């Protein structure tokens, strides 16, 4: 093959790959829509039984229906997280990079969780930096997904009366975001698997908190596409996640 032929062959291959990615994401979004229709129906029906809208139920029936409701909620979370991951993977090559005020974005994201923190009686403390924070060149919606996931996890593994701390630090040519909880921590022997797809720590599963095991995998994916870094420190007294994003 000469160079032109090779080039044409590669171009064709590239087209084929693009088409198969498009088919894959269409398939995911169509199945997600169909799945959600059934999951909505189940959610609403279980809720009706649990709220005794269709008559009284025994405590045994209530227990079983609670299990059914939670199991359905897990499926809904899985569909939501799968869609987010598919969206991140599709967008990875065309991130919309712009200069973003991370302080503002963090405040917006924290505000989204105010209902949840109120309900669980958890206080979120945002330690704002004393110095000015530079704008960070990133895909705003993707970084929002990172913040949402980390804050959601911190809340999820905290109990009533706990505090979640969020802070921003200027580093050389980068910005460090940290989110600390005083929750159950990540068991030492499982720490290296925490970013793996579908992995969930044993103590998280035991707590019966709903999760798909896709959140941190997605977060790491986004941070790495921004040439940033993510890591954590964890003990039985809580976990802190750190994300460093380059400014430019």
């Amino acid at each position: 093959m000469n160079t032109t032929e090779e080039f044409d062959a590669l171009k064709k291959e590239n087209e084929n790959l693009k088409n198969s990615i498009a088919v894959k994401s269409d398939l995911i979004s169509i199945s997600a829509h169909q799945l959600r229709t059934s999951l909505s129906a189940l959610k609403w029906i279980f809720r009706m039984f649990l709220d005794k809208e269709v008559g009284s139920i025994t405590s045994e029936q209530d227990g079983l229906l609670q299990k059914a409701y939670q199991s359905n909620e897990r499926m809904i979370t899985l569909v939501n997280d799968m869609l987010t991951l598919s969206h991140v993977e599709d967008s990875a090559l065309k991130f919309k990079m712009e200069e973003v005020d991370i302080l503002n974005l963090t405040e917006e994201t924290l505000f989204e969780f105010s209902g949840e923190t109120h309900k669980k009686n958890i206080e979120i403390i945002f330690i704002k930096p004393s110095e000015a924070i530079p704008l960070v060149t990133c895909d705003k919606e993707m970084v929002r997904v990172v913040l949402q996931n980390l804050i959601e996890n911190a809340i999820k593994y905290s109990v009533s009366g706990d505090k979640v701390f969020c802070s921003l630090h200027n580093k050389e040519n980068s910005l460090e975001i940290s989110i600390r909880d005083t929750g159950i921590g990540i068991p030492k022997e499982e720490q290296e698997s925490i970013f793996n797809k579908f992995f969930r720590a044993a103590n998280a599963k035991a707590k019966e908190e709903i999760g798909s095991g896709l959140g941190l995998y997605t977060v790491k994916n986004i941070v790495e596409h921004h040439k940033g870094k993510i890591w954590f420190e964890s003990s039985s007294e809580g976990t802190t996640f750190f994300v460093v994003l380059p400014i430019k």
Partner: protein
Amino acid sequence: MAKILIIEDDTFLQGLETAKLQKYGHTVVTASSGEEGMEKINELGLELVLLDLVLPKFDGFEILKKIRETEAIKALPVLVFSNLSEDADVKKAESLGATDFMVKSNFTLDELAEKIKSLIK
């Protein structure tokens, strides 16, 4: 208490939504296709439209566009209630003038009813 139009082609979901909103004291009018929805948006006295997006014949986006283009009803609150959630769909609904957007499977019917209450003046 308000008069609400539910445009939803899944008649089972539509039935559950209707029963819940009636329980909250609302009067409910239903449409099970885009075509029927297009007719019923002109019904007198509507105070809110609960709008699904994936519908036969005309989709929810077309209905939303029609509402915003029709002088008599252009200020009507439209709550999009769909199982689509991609950025492109949400942005399209926003740009066509949706008042709010909720993903069905993420909310209970009581949460839906509370949202409706907050949107009706």
